[in-house]
């Protein structure tokens, strides 16, 4: 994936290189999941949900709170379900009954929702930084791969992301309701004429998107920690990845997510950590300016989209 001369140019030994690579893939998988969350809602509604990052934060926070009463596995499952419920409620309250809202209206509404979720989190959980425990072992547990030490949580993250991707793909391909959602994405009017209830599909897309966001929030929590405002930067990175892969294209989002994760991981050796978020955003701006249809998308298609 990364050319060899890249490593030698920075006089990086192989182990360090591999460490960065693993970190990049781990974070990249999470960005990909956030991006897919964007894509699911975008495909169903044409809306970019600016509150997507808050779903990730909520998943982590709710799981942490439930951990006092439930074992880890159940706490995570319950957190995902609760977040899905929140997603559904948001859609029903704020979006479902709008008649042909403008893009500007939808941007502002979803930004408002993200503020409400973030501030609610602040009032419920305070400003403290929390995290779920490591799913296996603790922060110093590692297993060795060749000569490299890898945290088992990395495996959890990658495995969870892979399973989610596989599950979603199966859902959209094989399940009748998944196929109905794809029909909605392809042509809303035609889908509606075929008797598909579009409004329910939109609600479902919010639930799905909230659910996978929450799951991502849970698996990443032990490594990245969770705070009431950790959603914003995740949302920007997830959006970067969604654009990089071409809006609505989830398979490309995976590749783009891992790409961004790796670039970000290696950038640590070049710029101070404090500027790391700025790197992802600079990449976002660059893509928007140069190739707004994504590195895998075609410009012909982009002309058809509203941007």
């Amino acid at each position, binding site marked *: 994936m990364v050319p060899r001369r890249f490593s030698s140019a920075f006089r990086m030994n192989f182990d360090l290189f591999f460490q960065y690579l693993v970190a990049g893939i781990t974070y990249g998988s999470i960005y990909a999941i956030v991006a897919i969350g964007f894509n699911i809602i975008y495909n169903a509604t044409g809306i*970019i949900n*600016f509150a997507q990052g808050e779903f990730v934060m909520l998943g982590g926070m709710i799981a942490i709170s439930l951990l006092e009463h439930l074992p880890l596995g159940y706490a995570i499952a319950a957190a995902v379900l609760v977040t899905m419920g929140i997603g559904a409620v948001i859609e029903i309250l*704020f979006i479902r009954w*709008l*008649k042909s*809202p*403008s*893009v*500007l*209206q939808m*941007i*502002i*509404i979803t*930004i*408002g*929702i*993200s*503020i*409400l979720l*973030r*501030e*609610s989190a602040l*009032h419920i959980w305070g400003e403290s930084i929390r995290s779920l425990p490591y799913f296996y072992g603790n922060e110093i547990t590692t297993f060795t791969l060749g000569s490299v030490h890898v945290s088992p949580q990395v495996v959890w993250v990658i495995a969870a992301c892979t399973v989610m991707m596989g599950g979603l793909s199966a859902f959209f391909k094989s399940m009748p309701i998944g196929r109905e959602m794809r029909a909605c994405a392809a042509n809303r009017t035609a889908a509606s004429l075929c008797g598909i209830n579009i409004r329910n599909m939109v609600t479902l897309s919010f639930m799905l998107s909230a659910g996978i966001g929450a799951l991502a929030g849970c698996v990443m929590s032990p490594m990245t920690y969770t705070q009431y405002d950790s959603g*914003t*930067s995740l949302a*920007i990175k997830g*959006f970067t990845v969604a*654009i990089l892969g071409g809006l609505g294209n989830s398979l490309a989002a995976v590749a783009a997510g891992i790409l961004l994760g790796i670039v970000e991981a290696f950038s640590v050796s070049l710029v*101070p950590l*404090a*500027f790391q*978020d*700025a790197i992802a*955003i*600079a990449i*976002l*701006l660059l893509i*928007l*300016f140069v190739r*707004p249809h994504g590195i895998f998308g075609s410009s012909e298609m982009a002309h058809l989209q*509203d*941007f």
Partner: protein
Amino acid sequence: MRIRKNLSLAALCLATVGLHLLIVATGTQFYLTQLTMAAYYGLVVIGLGVLMGYAGQISLGHAGFFAIGGYLAAALTTRNLQPFQEALPVRMLDCLGLLATGQDIYGAALLTVTPWAACVLAVLAAALVALAIGVPVLKLKGHYLAMATLGFGTIVYRILLASAYFGEADGIVEVPAFPLLPAVGRFGPVVISGDADHRILNFYVAWGILILGIALLLNLIGSRVGRALRSLHSAEAAEASGIDTGRCKLQVFVLSAVYAATAGVLLTHFNGGIGPGEASVMKSVRYVALVAVGGMTNLWGTLIMGVGLTFLSLRGVFGAYDDVVFGAILIAVMLFAPGGVLSLRLKEFAYRLIPGGRS
């Protein structure tokens, strides 16, 4: 049209004086500080209002321009240039008589830029950044434009937060007063500072600048270029009428950035400092919320709601729920009154609230 505009401006001037008299009559002089600050924030909001309402371009990065203005003015008037005395830009400023000498709190010699020069440089810098960012950004629409401006705002925030030169999380403090006009005859000098002696003066300066700001914008909207701006919503027809829509958007974008940066400079001198919170995304979102409440194409509504709500927020009326209030305002306005609260027809509003009522 022109008569109505002049009458409205005169009414605003009278309202300003009336506000002062009311405060004197009720003995609530402590409101003056927040009213002064609210006027400066109002300047940002009306500038953004023209960009959003007339040019139809959303910006989620206007706190960035405010911060560029404020931080540059603060840094240039506080950071010691003594070690860089021999550098070419510093020597040029010196030749032009734009440097001021003083002493820091330990009595060491301090060489800084004069507030006027710093103000011009800071606003100019914001204008140039807006120009550079605006060319590619304004080609985007909808979500892409929103994300790009959000990204710009976040980058400014991160840079300020991570740079020692800009004081990291503490920001810049001890920013000197801004002598706007020298003393003439019996009149004392006009100084922008938070000093209690200058409180009434600063109230009038801030509101005077706000009135000037809205007067200029009203001029613009009523002019040939203003008509072009208002036509941007139907871009195809505007282009066919020979209007360079890209250029028009860019001009308004830069103008609104200049408004934000000017407000940033003046408020920083008034407050005696600036912190990274001024550059945060939440601030940008708040400006958008204020424009939305006022009504996108209603400059007076934007002004009234912008100054009013900012004042309440600064007074701490919303308490710990300050951000929640603005988030809720955003949603409620977009759901129930996309044309702004002042354009709301209550009957229609009632119909929408009653399920099964005529929509």
